[in-house]
């Protein structure tokens, strides 16, 4: 997965969760990041992950004045800390 594909996937997911039109989602920032493990520091409940530092992208989106953080690498996209939980897309 490329960075652009990861951002696109994150935008679609957020639009679906918030039941918003995609045009209402804006991109605050997309940065390279080192995450602490292979779940990108966003493990779901009952999920174990390899403890290897993992290079990826931190994708910050916003909608209706609220901020949302997605984390992605070439293998996966995750939503971090959404209503207190992490989600693997």
């Amino acid at each position, binding site marked *: 997965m490329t960075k652009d594909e990861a951002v696109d996937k994150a935008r679609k997911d957020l639009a679906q969760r918030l039941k918003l039109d995609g045009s209402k989602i804006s991109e605050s920032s997309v940065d390279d990041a080192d995450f*602490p*493990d*292979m*779940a990108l*520091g966003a*493990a779901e*409940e*009952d*999920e*174990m*992950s*390899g*403890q*290897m*530092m*993992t290079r990826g992208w931190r994708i910050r989106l916003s909608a209706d004045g609220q901020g949302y953080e997605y984390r992605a690498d070439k*293998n*996966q996209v995750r939503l971090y800390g959404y209503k207190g939980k992490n989600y*693997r897309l």
Partner: protein
Amino acid sequence: MNRNNFLVHLALAIVLILVAAFFGQLNRWRKQWSMHIVTMEEKKRPQTSEEIAIADRAAGRPEVLVKFKSGLSHDAIEALTARLNDRVEDLIENAPGWAAIDDLDDASPAATVEQYRAMPGVEYAEENYEINIPDQVTDATDISRVRTGVMLRPKDPMFSDQWALANSGQRGGKEGADISATIAWAKTTGSEDVVVAVLDTGVDYQHEDLQANIWTRPDGMDPYQDDELGSVDDTYGFNAIENESDPMDDNGHGTHCAGIIGAVGENDLGIAGVNWKVHIMPLKFMNAGGSGTTKDAIEAINYAIERKKAGVNVRIISASWGSTQRSQALEDVIRKAYENDILFVAAAGNSSVDNDRQPHFPSSYNVPNVVSVAALDRNDQLASFSNWGAKSVAIAAPGVDILSTWLGNSYEEKSGTSMATPVVAGVAALVLAEHPHMSVEDLRRQLLSSSDPIVALKGKTQTGGRINAAKAVE
């Protein structure tokens, strides 16, 4: 003088000159011939160990290796050796206190060793013993390389990049900030009788630098039987995700960990593992993204225990994974592994937190076979990402920029307590190669008690030290 007399004298002079020239040439030929003989004799290499020992003594090579007590200066060591008419050939840089001694009297090495052992300033003394030279090593340079004393360096081409095993200060590192693998290897390079289960994303068991060290189900052993799964053809291990036979790695993380434990050593390929020979049992419970469920981890541990009960010598599980969620079921199966004499080496985690306050599992389970591992960088500093815990983290090992095997016969550098964990698991396997009947309690104690104290780890781990393979295999 008449004309005739002159001609006679001239002829005599010419004859004399010719005779002198002939004898001169003869003398040169004699010298060249004798030099040729000497050269031939010099070129004749000693073959047997006795011939090598005699040649060593004749060549003035060190016969004994002596470890002097700490605090003795170079001058003091030289004075002690001079008392026995000996000479310090070399102070061994990566082995503090050790010196290679040349006995100028050419007494037998055994007698010289006894003389040193009787000296008050000496901790140990041993012969500069012969290390088994692999059959393919016939070149004189190689022979001298493997006979340099208490160290053994493999000729794997990427070995110089493996700072965790031998840190010479490469890429700005601190010389000696390593696990003293080259010293440990002089004693053992591992054993195929020891099976280490790599519980991970699977292992690329076809990697050319791993293939020879991959466990396969022994001939005559029945395929794995599970109450729910039925018969599983576990030729190369077990895949708990699919509940099937193939534990092939589709991520790379498990292959990296496997290479740290046991990439084949001295094979002219890539890297050397902590063990040059060992048996790695691939267990897959994490997917291509590098994560998996507690249930699948339990299934895979259970597989290893069942194989142990069936006669496979699984003595170590290497677990480079975790989460902050506690699972009683996972703790119970790790305890079951303990009851079956299996060490469980686990990553402390990469969140830069104190595990005494924020536990990380499975490394924080209080079970006697668990060894929790933090990560060090090439300067003996706790890695910036590494978790720690004065009570809950046992020991530290190199875990930053670690070169190891990756998918498709490749090699990559990776960082994490994931990488530090198989270093400790690998050292545990080396210890078992030397002490095959050591109990899991003694094995854990041996690993922890043989660590090197590191200033940066004081108050950060139980031992405050870095694993030391050389001390561990003693």
